[in-house]
């Protein structure tokens, strides 16, 4: 299943070497046990059920007319 976007509610989310700070968004697999734990403890909240790395939320830039 595609990753979903979550907003960080804790002071930060320590992801390996990186800190993802509060109010930032992060993509996580909603089916992973770790994601469920973070949701249960209120460290993250779901932002969107559809956004993923394969379906960009950034609108495409129209090509200039020739």
């Amino acid at each position, binding site marked *: 299943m595609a990753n979903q976007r979550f907003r960080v509610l*804790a*002071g930060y989310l*320590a992801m390996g*070497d990186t*800190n993802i700070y*509060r109010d930032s968004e992060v993509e996580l697999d909603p089916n992973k*046990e770790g994601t469920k734990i973070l949701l249960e403890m209120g460290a993250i909240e779901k932002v969107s059920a559809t956004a993923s790395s394969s379906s960009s939320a950034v609108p495409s830039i129209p090509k200039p007319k020739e």
Partner: protein
Amino acid sequence: MAQTTGGVSFVNAKVEYSTSGSSFTDISGFANMVEVSGGDRLAGEVYTADGDIGIVTFGKRTPIDLGYTCVWTEGTSDPFERFRGYHQTADGSQVILRFSPQGGAGTGKISFTGTGKITTAPWIGGDAGSPDPLTFSIVVRTANILKGVTA
């Protein structure tokens, strides 16, 4: 009430530093001790001629001193040389300290991060009568410590 089984010691803690926040360096193999002080809330008081107790008001939280004590080694990428460089750079480099009592292992485990500059230099001295390995200490002063969780 039943006694907690969730007590944690610091023997397997994970101790790290960073200058950017996007790449922490694990120095658990050097770090011997983490000390934290400060962060108290200021409080004021005044007494009037009437009554037996004062009037108390409250202010801001004070800065926090976050200290690491590490084994002193000579390597150019070892903690001493790194912290020395951060301290002696003009104006001082930003340093981010992060430590996790449970070693950072496991989703939801707690860690703490403080961002600031080194205010106590890492210089060492020595005692010829001591058999102990040399250690050095730094203190980073930070406005706040953030509590985070491991993903």
